[in-house]
């Protein structure tokens, strides 16, 4: 039975909105040029690939359903499990289902702690018990593990390289077809990134990023068939699985919060700057007041309010997943309400500047209504600010989620997120030997996501910010001058 959680609905709404935006971009010359500039930026292209992988995982994780139970319920009706699963859960079912009892280190074959085990002969020993799944196929874990891991890694690397080569070849062939050029020439031009002058998409960065991802992913895939690549958590879940599931939470927080704050920031910001007078005063008082409350307190208060509301109405949600999802959505709303002031202030300043420009005055002279002036003349000329701050704000929100969950006012404890992973790992940091892998995995994944988002944001800003138009064609004329002068002397 498909389940449409609130956040799923909004995520797909957002995807739809992005499609509409892409269509607008394709029609508008200025926007198309901007995106072309992003595509010609090597770092921007590479980070876009990484982001796209994260987004794909997040989208797969947003297709939820409740599996049918094996035995039908009374009256022949199909009964559904109370567990809400996603398509991602199905794809990585082995990761999800192969649980250990508790902690185990990455690629381990035995548990992390000694346990008292009863031998078949009745004697009891304290030893590291074999894991149920990790390395279960090995007859003699003590000797076979190292070679097995090495073989699988090497095989994975080879597989990854092969896949990368195949992908690059296919891609270049496709480009060659579009350009109607010879394969060899296309490959050379891609490598020297001298595409056609109109749209120099940085294919080299794109292909390199895809190749690196494939080369990393393939060994992980092979190893994860028989091992826990990133170890297991306290209740024996694979940390790799937890990390993959956390991606959706982060993306939802990052994007839906932006969606919540955008109408406040854009409408109020433009209204304040355009109408001035008492409208401006009022809006400024509101956001100055909000900004003067410490935002963590504001968010904590909001979350506690929601928590009390949900606890007093236990019948509100059918499944625990829906309950956790509602809390996630509310967190987005609260974060959004606490975060719109910065963008609003920026837009107010821009509107104050634009309203005095002569084309706006000309529109006044034509008796054009306020609303049309805002929609036609002000908003399009502020789009770059909105775009830049949305992409830049995304990474800040992902980090904010981690911090809030750590403090205990973040997502539902049952929901998998980087914040809850870190919060759980915090207690184990003092152990000897240390349980480091939960924290390291959360850190690594978050770093990749946020870094990709930040680099992408930089590329977007460079491409759209009219003030950063200092671009170099990369021409070097120093040597030419020297040569010219030597020629003169001769």
């Amino acid at each position, binding site marked *: 039975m498909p389940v449409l959680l609130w956040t799923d609905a909004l995520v797909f709404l957002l995807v739809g909105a992005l499609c509409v935006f892409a269509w607008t971009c394709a029609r*508008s*010359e*200025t926007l198309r040029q901007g995106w072309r500039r992003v595509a010609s930026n090597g770092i921007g292209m590479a980070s876009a690939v990484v982001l796209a992988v994260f987004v794909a995982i997040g989208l797969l994780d947003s297709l939820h359903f409740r599996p049918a139970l094996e035995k039908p319920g009374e009256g022949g009706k199909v009964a559904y499990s109370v567990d809400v699963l996603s398509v991602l859960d199905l794809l990585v079912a082995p990761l999800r289902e192969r649980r250990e009892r508790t902690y185990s280190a990455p690629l381990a074959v035995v548990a992390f702690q000694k346990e008292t085990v009863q031998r078949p002969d009745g004697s009891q020993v304290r030893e590291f018990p074999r894991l149920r799944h990790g390395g279960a196929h090995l007859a003699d874990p003590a000797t076979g593990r190292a070679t097995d891991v090495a073989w699988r890694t090497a095989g994975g690397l080879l597989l990854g390289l092969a896949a990368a080569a195949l992908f690059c070849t296919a891609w270049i062939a496709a480009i060659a077809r579009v350009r109607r050029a010879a394969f060899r020439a296309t490959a050379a031009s891609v490598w020297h990134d001298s595409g056609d*002058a109109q749209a120099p998409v940085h294919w080299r960065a794109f292909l390199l990023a895809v190749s690196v991802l494939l080369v990393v992913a393939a060994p992980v895939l092979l190893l994860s068939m028989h091992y826990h690549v990133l170890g297991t958590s306290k209740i024996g879940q694979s940390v790799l699985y937890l990390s993959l599931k956390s991606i959706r939470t982060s993306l939802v927080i990052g994007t839906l919060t932006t969606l919540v704050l955008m109408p406040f920031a854009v409408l109020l910001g433009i209204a304040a700057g355009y109408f001035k007078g008492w409208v401006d005063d009022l809006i400024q008082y509101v956001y100055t007041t909000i900004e003067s409350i410490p935002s963590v307190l504001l968010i904590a208060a909001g979350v506690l309010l929601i928590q009390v509301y949900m606890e007093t109405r236990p019948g509100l949600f059918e499944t625990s997943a829906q309950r956790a999802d509602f809390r996630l959505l509310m967190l987005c709303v609260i974060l959004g309400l606490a975060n719109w002031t910065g963008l609003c202030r920026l837009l107010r300043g821009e509107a104050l500047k634009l309203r005095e*420009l*002569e*084309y706006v*005055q*000309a*529109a*006044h*002279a*034509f*008796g*054009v*209504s306020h609303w*049309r002036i805002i929609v*036609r*003349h002000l908003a*399009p*000329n502020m789009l770059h600010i909105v775009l830049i701050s949305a992409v830049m704000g995304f990474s800040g929100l992902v980090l904010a989620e981690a911090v809030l969950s750590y403090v205990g006012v973040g997502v539902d404890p049952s929901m998998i997120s980087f914040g809850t992973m870190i919060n759980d790992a915090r207690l184990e940091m003092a152990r000897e030997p240390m349980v480091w892998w939960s924290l390291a995995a959360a850190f690594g994944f978050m770093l990749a996501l946020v870094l990709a988002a930040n680099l992408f944001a930089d590329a977007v800003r460079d491409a759209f910010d009219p003030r950063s*138009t*200092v*671009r*170099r*064609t990369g*021409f070097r*004329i*120093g040597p*030419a*001058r020297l040569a*010219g*002068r030597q020629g*003169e002397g001769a």
Partner: protein
Amino acid sequence: MSERPALPLLEVEGLRTWVDGGTSIVRAVDAVGLVLGRGETLALLGESGCGKSMTALSVTRLLPDAAEVVAGTVRLEGSDLLELPEKAMRDVRGARIGMIFQEPMLSLNPVMRIGAQVEEALHRHRRGAAQDGAMPRARALALLQAVGIPDAERRLDEYPFQLSGGMRQRVMIALALACDPELLIGDEPTTALDVTIQAQVLDLLRGLQRSRGMAMLLITHDLGVVAQTAQRVAVMYAGEIVEVAPVDAFLHGPAHPYSRKLFDSLPERGRRDAPLAVIRGSVPALDGGFTGCRFAERCDHAFEPCRRSAPSLVQLSEARQVRCFLHDPAVAGAKVPSPAAPTAPAAPVGPVPDPGAQQGLAPALLVARDLQVHFPLRGGLLRRARGAVRAVDGVSLELARGRTLALVGESGCGKTTVGKALLRLVEPTGGTLSFDGQDLRSLGRAHLRPLRARMQIVFQDPYASLNPRIRIGDALDEGMRSLRPEWNAAERAQRILRLLEQVGLPAEARLRFPHQFSGGQRQRIAIARALSVEPQLVVCDEPTSALDVSVQAQILNLLRSLQQQMQLSYLFITHNLGVVEVVADDIAVMYLGRIVERGPVRAVLSSPAHPYTCALLAAVPRIERSGAPDGQTLPGDPPSPVDPPAGCHFRQRCPRAMAICAQRYPDPASLPDGRAVACHLHPAVPAGR
């Protein structure tokens, strides 16, 4: 004096500067050569984008990051500046070469006192030299006095924002002079200033140059400035020097066709009845190579060799060079026309209506009586009004159908505010305003809309007046859609095509975006937009002051022919008296929010009655050089409109102020030739004389 010819002070040879244009390389300066002797003033003349500023920046090695000198030498007394390490170059700048830039607002540090900035310049370059006087403050004071800053002692402790634009430019000159440079480079030093202030600054520069024996490289686009200050002139076009000549010879007979065209397109008296000469087309892009003469495409005299090969500089006489085949006997042979040959007379536009005949007959289209616009100054906790900027303080105007009224004044006198208040883009705070008999001031936003279709405005800045994200067609459509709902989409599309044709743009322009057009083309689009709703009155707010002379001539011709076709009335706001002479029927001179003199253009300009009008006319740099300039430049700056002086506003700067001027503001008096003057020299005659 010496046997061997003395080394010239500055010698530029084969200078090439390329700029990274993002997608292509722009050859902004292409093999420029200049020679400047000691104590000489050379004017580098040219329109925007011809590479004159880049030349100056190359000489001082202050090029932006995207630009680089590719070839050539710049020798200051024989030593090549381009070879010097940056550290040595810093000592050359300031100590031996002083620079003045165009924008006095941006050239001074806003958080440093004037004195500190001057002392810093002194200190920086005087370290090694003998410490003449342990008191840099005394030297700074002497410098400020030398550049004619009144009350210099007090000014030393003030910040740049407390100074007017003219004063700031003087401080800039003081900074440039701090270390007695041998060469002063002025990059459009007076372009941002008003004519009366410009006259002061040019006077100062001339005086300083004479007394200090300094050489000056003056970059300008203004032929008047050239005539008043320079000894020699070098004309630049598309990155090349096309003509070098002594100023007198140049003014009497420019040799290059481009220079001649520049003269012909100047709006001046006597060019009223015929359209101004224009240079067709626009400056070519500098990112490719040229096969022939760079000017050939736009030249009336171009003949076959011009398109085949590039001309080189031809030596006409000892001091004159010109880059044109017409003057190359080897190529042109007998084709050389006389240098001062008048350009072919353009077809007359038609009879200009006689100003006297229509006055009184045509009912006034627009009447303003005692119009006031005061902007409140707010302060304190509750933002109460504490005073007011009296931007417009009692202006009365009348404008008849089909006529042009020029509103003239210096910046800050309130003329733009008048224009906007007439269209209610700024709310008037007092007075009455009527359009075709209807009271404008009492109408609400909704009731004003039908009238908006009958009056429109064209703005000054062609870059800010079009929304960069809207196609031209949509921009033209906007007004019709709003104000002419009776026209359907097909009719509007038809009208857009006709409008584009009227202003001389191709039909496919409607599909393009503003950034694909040049400044002059954008101004045409702005005019088309204003005309789209078929107005009767168009307020033209300095429509040509951001444009080059040749483009200005095109726009003025366009405005005049449109006026005749459509019986338009223009309120023409400008600070350029030359433009007034060409386009206007009547003129109103504004000073500090009030009109001081008003009347038919010919009468006012030929025999101005108000001392301010006289001063304004005298300050305009004229090309006909009659020995020394008129000598009398207006002292001081316009007072602040927050608290205007008691009595006549002009009395503090007036050369003919009397005792009564301080007591009360003069009443406007009517002169027999239909003029009105507000001055005690022309006392108002009591009614019923």
